[in-house]
């Protein structure tokens, strides 16, 4: 990039950086797309100066788990619209899953994604499939994909049922230091389930997905990583049992990391029959149908209130390393169908940070922990050394938040092409006001 980036001085903000254990009022100077200096009362000649009094300045949030739908499903989302949603939600880097059409299982698709991403305001990190066509039969050409720019491997949405193949995938990926992001699910136990196998399923006759379907596969995955002494990342933990397995694995020294989504941290199976889930929704925005609203349908499903509490505890104590959205855009008519016919998934990019700020408000996380779970650790999991912190020399990827700003979730105002959020009408406090990528302001409220 030959074009010069104007230097930017951000004054008087509250800088919160987990990597440096920094939380206080500092100025930060961004030059040539990198963090140049942090200090109190910095006197530097900047091309532009912004006074951020009362605002929080965070290392840009990094989402380990989004679906951008391009190529193939551009009517749901494109790389551009997804990246716009990302920066509006404070994410400066997003790792996109491989289940596009064609599937990102070869270097040509990876290169296409990166080419499209050149026009995108956020940094787009392609995740390649683990197996060809995600069929669970043959490994992708990992070396070629890494060379093309793949940051990790995942057959997300599916598991790799063949344990020997999963073993070889873990072994081979370790050659490149790239993690496998595992969507853990025993297909036979998952069967034709649509919601958590619990009280709501029992009472409403909806086919259940037992917690066991997830936990059995998490156990298998962790056991493989332990045996092979390689790292593995578990996608979207949703159950107490899954948390226990990760916790025990970590205690034994297994290199296992895990993520949780905002929806699993805020909603329980109750949302299937009452999407409001105890929240007082904005009257004008409240969905007409709160019972059997298909925006309560995702995989893994919303679990019990006890699971929600356990996820929050695990997020606080570090068993869960990262908040990831599993941003899964679907077109409106695809979700406006019978509950069992609706696709799994909800969007998350534009609500995640505000919900995480609510976890801070509720005392679940400290501001430093929030930064750790949304920036520092996701960067570490993907092995990205140039981001996840505001230390000198790091990429100037920043999220600026007004912690007091009150707003209501209105999907019509999303940058994402999709509207399938379970949080419509929620009143949130804390909002992204500016997002900076490589020293450039890419989003302003």
């Amino acid at each position, binding site marked *: 990039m030959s074009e010069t980036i104007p230097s930017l001085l951000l004054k008087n903000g509250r800088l919160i950086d987990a990597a440096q254990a920094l939380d206080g009022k500092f100025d930060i100077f961004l030059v040539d797309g990198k963090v140049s200096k942090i200090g109190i009362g910095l006197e530097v000649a900047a091309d532009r100066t912004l006074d951020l009094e009362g605002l929080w300045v965070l290392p840009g949030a990094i989402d380990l788990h989004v679906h951008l739908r391009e190529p193939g499903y551009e009517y749901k989302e494109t790389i551009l619209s997804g990246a716009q949603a990302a920066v509006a939600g404070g994410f400066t880097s997003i790792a996109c899953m491989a289940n596009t059409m064609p599937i990102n299982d070869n270097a040509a698709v990876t290169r296409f994604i990166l080419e499209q991403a050149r026009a995108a305001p956020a940094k787009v990190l392609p995740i390649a499939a683990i197996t060809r066509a995600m069929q669970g039969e043959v490994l992708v050409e990992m070396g070629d994909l890494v060379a093309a720019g793949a940051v990790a491997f995942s057959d997300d949405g599916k598991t790799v049922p063949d344990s020997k193949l999963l073993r070889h995938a873990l072994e081979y990926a370790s050659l490149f230091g790239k993690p496998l992001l595992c969507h853990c699910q025993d297909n036979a136990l998952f069967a034709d389930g649509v919601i958590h*196998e619990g009280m709501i399923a*029992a009472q*409403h006759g909806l086919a*259940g997905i037992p917690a066991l379907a997830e936990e059995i596969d998490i156990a298998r995955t962790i056991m493989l990583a332990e045996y092979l002494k390689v790292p593995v990342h578990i996608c979207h933990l949703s159950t107490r049992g899954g948390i226990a397995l990760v916790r025990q694995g970590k205690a034994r020294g297994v290199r296992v990391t895990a993520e949780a989504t905002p929806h699993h941290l805020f909603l329980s199976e109750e949302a299937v029959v009452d999407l409001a889930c105890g929240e007082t929704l904005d009257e004008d925005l409240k969905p*007409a149908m709160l019972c*059997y609203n298909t925006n309560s349908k995702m995989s893994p499903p919303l679990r019990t209130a006890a699971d929600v509490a356990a996820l929050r505890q695990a997020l606080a104590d570090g068993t869960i390393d990262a908040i990831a959205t599993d941003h899964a855009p679907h077109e409106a008519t695809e979700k406006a169908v019978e*509950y*069992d016919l609706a696709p799994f998934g909800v969007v998350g990019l534009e609500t995640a940070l505000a919900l995480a700020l609510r976890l801070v408000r509720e005392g679940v996380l400290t501001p430093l922990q929030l930064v750790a779970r949304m920036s520092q650790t996701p960067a570490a999991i993907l092995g990205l050394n140039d981001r996840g912190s505001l230390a000198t020399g790091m990429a100037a990827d920043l999220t600026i938040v007004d912690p007091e700003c009150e707003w209501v979730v209105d999907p019509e105002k999303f940058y994402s092409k999709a509207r399938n959020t379970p949080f419509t009408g929620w009143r949130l406090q804390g909002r992204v006001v500016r997002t900076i990528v490589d020293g450039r302001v890419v989003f302003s409220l």
Partner: protein
Amino acid sequence: MGFRRKDLLGTRDLSADEIRTLLESAESFKEIAERPLKKVPALRGKTVVNLFFEPSTRTRTSFEIAAKRLSADAVNISASTSSVVKGESLLDTVDNLQAMAPDIIVVRHKSVGAAHLIAGHIGASVVNAGDGANEHPTQALLDLLTISAHKKLGPGLRVAIIGDIAHSRVARSNIWALTTLGITVRVCAPPTMLPRGLENIKGVEVCRRPEEALDGVDVVMMLRIQLERQDRLLFPSLRDYAAIFGLNRRRLALARPDAIVMHPGPMNRGVEITSDVADSEQAVILSQVSNGVALRMAVLFLLGGQGHE
């Protein structure tokens, strides 16, 4: 007092008063079946659409007869003859129907919540005639009507429901309606067909064996076992199922001597119920069918005939 709803989607959220209103109204419609001219003008000029996405003979016929006896115009649409097979969405299908200004739509669909989806989308009244394994409210209400001819509905009464509870909308609607009236419900199924957590519902007792469920009950409801469940590994064979869970004379003797035997139909004779029990004095299975018409007349009348516009 009365019944003021746009739709009847389930028994789950019906109050005891609403249930009684429906049953009283149904009681008054029973007599019409005995007249030489089986017709009243209550819903003259109203259009009732039976929108059935699942095959059904008896429920659809029952609704059709109920509508016609109320002088409504009844139209039957089954999925095989509609545009659904062409890939049209449910809401598009319903929008097209709505454009023809029906007053009441009776819906049967394999998906849980389909009737709710439709009801939330259109102005016509919607009657749920079965949504997946969720609810089949008119079946439960006609069952109550049938029981009430023999027993007093209320606390002290004990009802056993035996069969594939997990996949049964009849079981769920009966559980809600019966427990709302303070009636104790015992459910019994092979563990593979018993959803986890039912025992947490107030008024519901879960029994492992039919002998336990039948002991001293006033009402026995047998559910139809569906053959396709066998393919899904939920039980080894019909023979095995019949041996352990089938209702026969010997097992029925465990219930109160004046217990009545019910079945929502269609029956698999020799599987969930033996022929001698199905044809016995204690069986009220055909009364259920007769009462179905009266109960559905009451439902259509209360939704379409008065109050709600």
